[in-house]
């Protein structure tokens, strides 16, 4: 099964490219202290807003900090936000979806109405409103993005559970007296993992996009912590004099999100070739 999966995945060149991007980002963020040419926070007022040069390959920002170094450090922040936020969304979404799909009836009705209600809110409005009441910090951002992004996963897991729960292996488990918890976590959940994994990969991309938009607006990751989003704020403030501040961090976001999306779609196609669109 795993061998089959890898065989199919490897043939999809785009998916492999996506995987390469993701791996590269991990390596970059772990090696950041050693490979970034400057200290990400080192202010150098003698070289502010320098265009890209041999000394500063991607230029410097209004405080004279090296853009390349800040981008390398920003990679780690993006990964952290993406993974933690998605993790929270996965846990909430899976638990609610499993309960709705397995128990059905009023539990299902209640949870799915809750999903419908949550989907009425423009997600960005909900996130902003919550931030208005809390301090914007990287942890709050991760929790809020996760807590407002679980609805799709709930629907997915519920659908999987509904189609799985009448299958013979579940009926057999019930016949020998397995508890609900055992059936849900040992028998049903492993069979739903494939679609959860795909949703998680695509979810990381979405969370990184949301974080960068929030940080860009000044209500996400707060300076001086470097994030690709808040680096773009400096780009906007200096839009008529320093194009490099706008170009490079956004390019990093684009490539990262593209990487996760390609990886996610690749995993989906390799898990189940019938799902190929």
């Amino acid at each position, binding site marked *: 099964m795993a061998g089959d999966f890898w065989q199919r995945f490897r043939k999809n060149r785009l998916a492999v490219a996506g995987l390469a991007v993701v791996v590269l980002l991990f390596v970059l963020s772990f090696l950041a202290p050693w490979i970034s040419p400057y200290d990400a926070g080192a202010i150098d007022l003698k070289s502010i807003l320098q265009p890209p040069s041999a000394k500063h390959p991607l230029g410097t920002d209004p405080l004279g900090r090296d853009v390349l170094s800040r981008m390398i450090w920003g990679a780690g922040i993006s990964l952290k936000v993406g993974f933690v936020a998605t993790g929270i969304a996965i846990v909430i979404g899976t638990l609610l979806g499993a309960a709705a799909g397995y128990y059905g009836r009023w539990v299902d009705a209640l949870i799915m109405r809750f999903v419908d*209600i949550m989907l*009425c809110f*423009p997600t960005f409005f909900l996130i902003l*409103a919550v931030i208005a*009441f809390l301090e914007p910090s990287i942890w709050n951002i991760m929790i809020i993005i996760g807590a407002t992004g679980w609805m799709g996963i709930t629907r997915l897991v519920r659908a999987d559970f509904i189609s799985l729960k009448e299958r013979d292996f579940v009926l057999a488990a019930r016949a020998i007296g397995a508890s609900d918890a055992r059936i849900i976590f040992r028998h049903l959940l492993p069979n739903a993992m494939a679609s959860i994994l795909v949703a998680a990969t695509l979810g990381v991309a979405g969370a990184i996009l949301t974080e960068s938009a929030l940080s860009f*607006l000044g209500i996400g990751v707060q300076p001086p912590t470097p994030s690709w989003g808040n680096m773009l704020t400096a780009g906007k403030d200096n839009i008529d004099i320093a194009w490099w501040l*706008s170009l490079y961090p*956004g390019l990093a976001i684009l490539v990262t999100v593209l990487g996760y999306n390609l990886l996610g779609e690749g995993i989906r196609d390799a898990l189940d070739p019938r799902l190929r669109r």
Partner: protein
Amino acid sequence: MIRYVSKRLLFMIPLLLGITIICFTVMHLAPGSPTDMETQMNPRASAEAKERLMALYDLDKPLHVQYWLWLKKIAVLDLGTSFSQDRRPVDRKILERLPITILLNLLSMGLILAVAIPLGVLSAVRQDSWFDRLAGIFVFVGFAVPTFWLALLLMILFGVELGWLPISGIRSLNYEYMTPGAALWDLLKHLILPVGLSAFGGLAGLSRYMRSNMLEVIRQDYILTARAKGLRERTVIYKHALRNALLPVITILGLSVPGLIGGSVIFETIFAIPGMGQLFYMSVMSRDYPVVMGILLIGAVLTLLGNLLADVSYALADPRIRVS
């Protein structure tokens, strides 16, 4: 039809109540509780703001009483008064900014339809051609582009380097002195970037959807019948297939409402457009809680209305929905 619409309206009631409960929950994250030591230290929540929050939301009463009193207030659109200097009623502040936001969103919705439908249909009709592949790449990259970044790049290109388009506001300073034609052109020039970018976000999804819809319809028996009786390919595609593939687009449009409204925060902030999104952002930054709550509520209600409108139009367009 009337029965269908009234059924849909009845379904909205629990959703509306749910929306108010979630808003109410968010509100209770507010620094307002007198026993909350953390907020006492919080310099951003002044004593005065706390007092006004107490009065506005009756925070000294038990929770269910608070909720009931608040529900009675919002039922008559009494959203309180703004914390900002002007202290104006929140509903007034929002209503005067709503038209520009709705105008922008309708324009970008129109643009999405005008571009995504031909794109999707042509991709489907010429499946696996170079056009289809190109469109596929465009869509895939479109999903991944942070639109606010694209906005910055286009501002640099068209606003700063080429100087063709203005990059902030919706009017030039001297628009009062322009002829009507020039004033309209001025408005259009201000709207091109924000509307185009806001449409770009929804474009990818709809064109992909249109493509897969069209591919599915083309395989149906009635298309085979149309071909079998010797109709020209053009008639088959653009009359028989397209009409059926277009139907579900109504639903997708309804579903895209929250995304568009949410996106208005970003575009109105970047381009300094005086709409509801910009008001929301400014209120979040200045912790003008009554305005934040008001816009959150109105955003959700607008989404609900968008979905209702989509469902009803679908039922009008497709009799099968009404019966089942």
